[in-house]
């Protein structure tokens, strides 16, 4: 009996393919793409200013609200943060990625990769929470700063307008540190992958041709690692752009995109504005992905 069912399917490979493909495709298209589509639709609705109800009629009114100075500032602030986080993550990630790819023994490499991926998968929330403890006014970092008599420098830093705050745990500087920490593994892995693909013979060829180690590094390793940096930046940039946990936890009244979306739809109840607001990160990411593909970053993913 089973043999006959098996034969029936064996002779119809296209039917089998359809059976395999239908459930996941149906789920992703209906649930996920459907939701994205409804988000898009909602961004073209507007809210009635008096009743607070959503008017289901096509309008571009909501999109115009995005370009109010306050919202423009939110976009600028978020994009700047995402950009800086990406740059610093790339700088911090490189040495470790380079070490894992080119210097670690196979056994050490396995363990180092596990050590990098564990934070990547483990609780993002708990990792944010850890910094709440570390950055607290009375916390461990202040204690060390005090130990090295640097309290004055910290106070000066915190007094700077725009990036300062009452303490590290309530300031853009603190947010920056936490973002850098949280997304760092997403940068290490793609760079390591890209460097891994640089064949050892290429490095030997370079030094064989008379390049000093520093020249080899600049002319061979860095250009070849670049697609990895771009691939990693897709994550660090996108994740920073959409995050609202870190701003809510360590930020002040100056909103970031995620935070704004969260509060518009939550306390504000303005779903159309929240929807239009998220289209910002979506568009930025789509453009970013297109550029990244041009730069060959997808091979390093």
């Amino acid at each position, binding site marked *: 009996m089973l043999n006959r069912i098996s034969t029936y399917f064996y002779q119809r490979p296209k039917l089998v393919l359809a059976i395999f493909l239908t459930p996941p495709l149906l789920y992703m298209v209906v649930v996920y793409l459907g939701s994205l589509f409804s988000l898009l639709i909602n961004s073209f609705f507007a809210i009635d200013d008096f009743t607070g109800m959503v008017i289901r009629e096509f309008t571009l009114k909501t999109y115009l609200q995005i370009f109010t100075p306050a919202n423009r500032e939110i976009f600028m602030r978020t994009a700047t943060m995402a950009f800086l986080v990406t740059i610093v993550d790339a700088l911090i990630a490189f040495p470790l990625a380079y070490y894992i790819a080119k210097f670690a023994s196979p056994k050490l490499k396995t363990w180092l990769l596990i050590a990098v991926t564990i934070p990547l998968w483990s609780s993002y929330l708990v990792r944010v929470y850890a910094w709440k403890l570390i950055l607290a006014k009375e916390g461990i970092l202040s204690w060390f700063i005090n130990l090295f008599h640097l309290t004055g420098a910290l106070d000066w830093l915190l007094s700077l307008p725009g990036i300062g705050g009452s303490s590290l745990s309530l300031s853009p500087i603190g947010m920056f540190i936490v973002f850098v920490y949280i997304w760092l593994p997403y940068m290490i892995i793609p760079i390591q992958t890209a460097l891994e693909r640089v064949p050892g013979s290429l490095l030997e060829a370079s030094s064989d041709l008379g390049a000093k180690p520093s020249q080899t590094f600049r002319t061979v390793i860095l250009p070849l690692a670049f697609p990895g940096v771009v691939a990693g930046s897709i994550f660090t940039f996108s994740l920073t*752009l959409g995050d609202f946990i870190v701003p809510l936890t360590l930020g002040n009244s100056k909103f970031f995109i995620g935070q704004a979306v969260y509060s518009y739809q939550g306390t504000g109840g303005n779903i159309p504005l929240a929807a239009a607001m998220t289209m910002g990160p979506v568009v930025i990411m789509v453009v970013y992905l297109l550029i990244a593909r041009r730069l060959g970053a997808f091979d390093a993913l």
Partner: protein
Amino acid sequence: MPSSSSSTRPRATWGLTLAALGTLLFLHVPMWIIFLYTLTPDETTYTFPLPGFTTKWFGVALQRADLWRALTLSFQVASIATVAALILGTLAAAAVYRSNFFGRESISFLLVLPIALPGIVTGIALRTAIGGLDIPFSFWTIVIGHATFCVVVVYNNVLARFRRTSATMIEASMDLGANSFQTFRYVVLPNIATALLAGGMLAFALSFDEVIVTTFTAGQQTTLPIWIFSQLSRPRDRPVTNVVATIVILITFLPIFFAQKISADASDTEGETK
């Protein structure tokens, strides 16, 4: 990996080694600090050095019914989302592996989209859709949300394993008289089992920790991450939060660790069997 490479492998400079070590510590030390703080007797601040040591907060946390409810809910959500992801992800991987149909690339792209786009996009999109259809927010809306981004984890793991497995093995099995079902049971399943395990464990960890999408798809339900999140912005139970954070690290650490170990071992033995 050839062992001969160890002799030709260049040595890292001290600067590079130190920088690499520093990054590694930067990644891990903050989590250890939470462990330390579970022992503080201080209820209202994060004073360092700790004013003393106590283990009483573990007992206090164990007594909290709201925590147990949140923990149970997170377990249930993660379990069901993982099962859904295992089924959908494996089917998609099998389809993509089996045949060269038009639009293969789009499948991968569609599956990876929920984790490539910022979580808030997925979250608010689901919220508008669910709200627009007048479906009440519930346990199941959380699960549906989590499944969307867990599928890709299983898919990637299983597809990678399929690609490592010799394609002729399935043909060999049928050639020797096994029908499709027997081939699946005796050849395919044993070969992808560890990939399923790894993918499933990662999906579980991902769902168990998820907070961004969950805040948009949950109604009155409080998962463990949502409980922690409420403590982040308005800390009331600092010592208990420390204990909960520690528990979350421990619960997710083992599956993640084993999943990574399985994947690493699988790619190690690849060279031997070929």
